[in-house]
């Protein structure tokens, strides 16, 4: 895989990892999945899984770059991944809020 491919893979992994962290927070779980039960997705499980994914993302970064460079790339990718997840939650909240409001108006 090319370096760009590795970085993209690292970013995607980091996004999924950050999404796990977000789902471990009750408010966001309710926002995204409604009243669905946390069957196996216990907050702690999600946090451990999220942390593992972020660690894997770092490992992928080291495949594209020397370790010290990868540290920088990884740190910045984590920030970007967190923004992507936050943005997705915000957009989701907006989209799911609009029809409900229409409903009430009717």
């Amino acid at each position, binding site marked *: 895989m090319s370096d760009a491919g590795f970085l993209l893979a690292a970013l995607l992994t980091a996004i999924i990892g950050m999404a796990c962290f977000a789902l471990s*927070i009750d408010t966001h779980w309710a926002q995204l999945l409604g009243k669905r039960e946390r069957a196996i997705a216990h907050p702690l499980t999600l946090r451990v899984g999220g942390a593992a994914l972020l660690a894997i993302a770092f490992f992928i970064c080291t495949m594209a770059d020397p370790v*010290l460079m990868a540290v920088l790339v990884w*740190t910045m990718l984590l*920030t*970007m991944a967190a923004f992507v997840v936050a943005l997705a939650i915000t957009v989701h909240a907006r989209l799911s809020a609009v029809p409900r409001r229409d409903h009430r108006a009717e």
Partner: protein
Amino acid sequence: MRETFRQSMAYLHTWLGLALGFLLMVIFFFGSLSVFDREIDRWSIPETRAPAAPLPSFDKVVLPIVPSVKPDADDMARAAAEVIGPLPPVETLRATGIWVGSNHRDPLVRMFLEFDIPNKPVDPNQDHGHVHGNTAIDPATGQRLTGGLEDRLAIGTRFFFPMHFMLHVEWAMLGYWIVGLAGMTMLAALVSGVVMHRRIFREFFTFRPEKNRLRSTLDLHNMTGVLALPFLFVITFSGLLIFADFYVPSVTKLMRPLEKSQETAEAGRTGLPEDPAGQPGQLASVDKMMSDAKARWAERGVPGEVGFVSVTHFGDVNAYVTVGRDNVDRVATQEEIHFNGMTGELMYENPPTRPIEAVKGFLYGLHFQHFKHWGLRWLLFVGGLIGCACIATGFLFFVEKRKRKHAAAGSIGSSVVDALAVTSVTGMLVATATMMLANRVLPVDLPAHDTWQKSIFWFTWLATLVHAGLRSKPVASGGASSAWAEQCWAVAALATMAVLANWVTTGDHLLKTLSDGYWPVAGVDIVMLIAAAAAGGTAYVLSRRSQFFTAAAREMSAPAVGSQNV
């Protein structure tokens, strides 16, 4: 006790942030632009739009140019004020130090010369004085840049970059001090911000634009601050570290004898002569040393283009040559091999650095960003802009939180802060875009071409302050200033015009630069178009909102007027 500590941190965060946030905005924004300083240079001096080139032959190209470079007049004036007695005439001064360098992003070879002067310095702490001269070489022709190109303003490296670290306040080096103070403030703001944040993990991903303005502004301020915290902290800290010797001049100023003995010890350890011998000497082939250095790097399996060559004690038997690697593959800089200038023999190769030096090299390197990694470069650019967003939303929150209270008390505090925020956010963008446009539109043969561009920048910025001040009246009565929307429209228009002007004056439109793969110019154009679109979108939303509010206000006041008549 805990609550009061948090409150005191909130107090510190608010008022320190307010006092120096305007400067931080400037430092972060121009720092972000400096990530692409060489690219902005290419855009602003179209004659130098060429692919990056490796360092040319030192013996055949660089050495013949050395005698033609004279000390800089400004630097002569500076030196004259610092030494006893009149300086010798410029023609008699000979170069005693040479530095030439280039990198993977730069099509020009930059050359700096040092000239020893015989005068004793006024300050006994300085042992000998120097004056400096500089020029740039076009590797394609092997000649000095011609046609006044040497004097043309390279906006990236000569204007935006110095703005980032000294704000162009040269008097008594005050600009450096102000930036240092702002950097310390940033660190304090980050720490106090974390302390005062109540739900740092629970609201990690939280942005609620549908909530009231105060809440959503705070969400955005917290989110940008927290998510980019590692970047913001490290970039601020490393920036301060770069100027640590200047801010805390203990070694260079107060412990002069200690520094002197340190220099001597260093010279003893490395074998590199500390002083010239005073006997003229002929330099051996530097090209041979460059190829020796490259062979050594190839042996170690690292990318081996020469980044710079310097000659110390040039023209003396004690001359030595330093060959530095263009560190494309690593963060830290400073990888050098030293050769004897007379014999060309290897004298000393920088050993693997000690841990403390390695940490310092890493922090320096991540701030100077000499590496070749376009993905990381863009990430750091975006990181800087997130810092700007964090600071800007801090101002918005300050104003939003207080404006009704101020309005009720008849205070103009929040309207003044709002006007300053407009100036330091959109006003700065307006001034920058105007300068870029002026760079393309002003005729090159205009006398003082560079001064014109700089003056246009400063006066435009001043004009945005006046404009923001005139429009901020509604804020004093709890409303919103229309300056935000108006200046956003101006940014959209000016940035688009700058891109168009680049097309008209050079023929380098985006389709051409993209199909040629000439990213330096294409990248600058694309960023300006994105900025224009974002500013236009913001302006549209703001204007619609204010129309909505005006209409609502009219509706509400209309029956009131009617009832009065009855």
